[in-house]
């Protein structure tokens, strides 16, 4: 009321000047606020993906630092690596997201570079995550086979009397079924096939031994006994088959790690 009374005493020309000045002032304030907000948003955009990248590496390094001497420790370490893959998948949803109100600003070269760098980081992280996922999936299958074999071997590592030979056939048959039933990726398939083949040989060699024992046939018994030694040695070579299959996975993972964390090797 007071302002409008005061304005009535101002000439129309001066009133127009004042109005323009007020609007311009308001505009400048708005621009300043928008600019400040834009600065903040872009700044946090950059720091968010950079710090996420650093945190990711900390997670990977922490997983690497875990002990892995016993099978329980190895299983725990594997879970830590799997969690890293999970972190990457969830980050893909939230990172590199630009608010619509400032999205147009990517026409500015410097800001577009941020967007591109973020997208590249996510893309590299995605590659790393996928390689990690493939590797952990492989290792999970490998641990399942190892656990099955370990359980089967536990029944025959001490002196085996003729009374328990029959149960040896059964335990290897169980191992055969357990390995046959497990699902695995394409990379692990050759290891699974090799494991099945070797387990079946052990199963049939124990059967040969049992038959020779029942027939009290010394020649066949001695033959089955040496075949058993060969079959166990063949099973031992399974770790070489597995190492051969795992090698390309670790090479790919290593390369993805180097690219994600921008290190040329």
């Amino acid at each position, binding site marked *: 009321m007071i302002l409008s009374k005061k304005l009535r005493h101002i000439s129309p020309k001066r009133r127009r000047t004042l109005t323009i000045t007020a609007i311009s002032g308001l505009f400048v304030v708005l621009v300043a606020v928008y*600019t400040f907000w834009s600065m903040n948003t872009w700044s946090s955009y950059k720091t968010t993906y950079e710090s996420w990248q650093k945190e990711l590496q900390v997670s990977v390094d922490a997983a690497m630092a875990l002990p892995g001497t016993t099978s329980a420790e190895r299983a725990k*370490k594997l879970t830590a690596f799997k969690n890293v893959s999970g972190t990457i998948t969830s980050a893909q949803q939230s990172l590199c997201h630009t608010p619509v109100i400032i999205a147009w600003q990517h026409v500015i070269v410097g*800001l577009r570079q941020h967007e591109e760098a973020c997208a590249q980081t996510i893309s590299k992280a995605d590659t790393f995550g996928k390689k990690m996922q493939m590797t952990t999936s492989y*290792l999970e299958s490998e641990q399942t086979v*190892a656990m099955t074999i370990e359980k089967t071997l536990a029944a025959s590592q001490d*002196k*085996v009397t003729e009374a328990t030979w029959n149960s040896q056939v059964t335990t290897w048959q169980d191992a055969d079924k357990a390995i046959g039933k497990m699902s695995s990726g394409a990379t692990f398939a050759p290891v699974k096939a090799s494991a099945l083949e070797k387990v079946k040989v052990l199963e049939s060699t124990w059967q040969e031994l049992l038959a020779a024992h029942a027939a009290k046939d010394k020649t066949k018994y001695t033959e089955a006994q040496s075949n058993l030694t060969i079959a166990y040695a063949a099973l031992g070579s399974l770790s070489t088959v597995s*190492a051969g299959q795992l090698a390309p996975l670790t090479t790919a993972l290593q390369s993805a790690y180097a690219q994600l964390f921008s290190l040329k090797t």
Partner: protein
Amino acid sequence: MCFMCSVAYGVAGVSVLLGNSGAPLALATATQVKTISSQVQSLQDLPSVLGSMKVPNLEEPAWLKDQNAAEAAAKAAKSVPVVKVVTYDVTSKGAITANMAEFRSQANATLNDGRGWARLGVSFQEVASGGMFTLVMSEASQMPTFSSGCGTDYSCRAGRYVVINQDRWLGATPSWNNAGGSLRDYRHMVINHETGHWLGHEHEFCGGPGQPAPVMQQQSIDLQGCTFNAWPTASEMWSTQLGITKV
């Protein structure tokens, strides 16, 4: 001054302020990159499981032990020169249900086994009649007819007669069976023991706990802390009957 221009100027300032935009971060060291590969490889379980694997140590089955021992004995017997042939004839007394052909064959195998009295350098030969001793398969109830010292429970030797109690031949003794001894080993033992009497041996006693019993010990009755043994020991390798002092 247009709105868009103002904003553009402002944002250009932001990009300048942020600086170093999109420059890659050098976070990893070469060591770390190498480590991830070896760390992942070390997560394999198969090397440790298969590395500690051993081929099962199979306990030799009883039949194989017998076969191996018989083969070793046969080999050993070949190396002992036969200096004397001992003949014997086989007969039976009373109602016999045991297989006599098996009795003849197993008795001959035992007598000529390289673990037994053959080590004296003796070859035992079955003849139709007029042998140096007579091996008899006797019904248990007929045992006392050979001598007042022969009871119905066990086998015995009476003069030239080496008499095997049919009940023991067919079923060994409870103490032997309870200890897990095989019937074949019992048969080895009883033939060796009773023939040992004919060769001139008296009863022996256990040499000490855990040692194999002398074949001339009454193992069917009491082991005295010894372990069952179907074959004559080295110290029993003599025969007054054959004039062999010590092998």
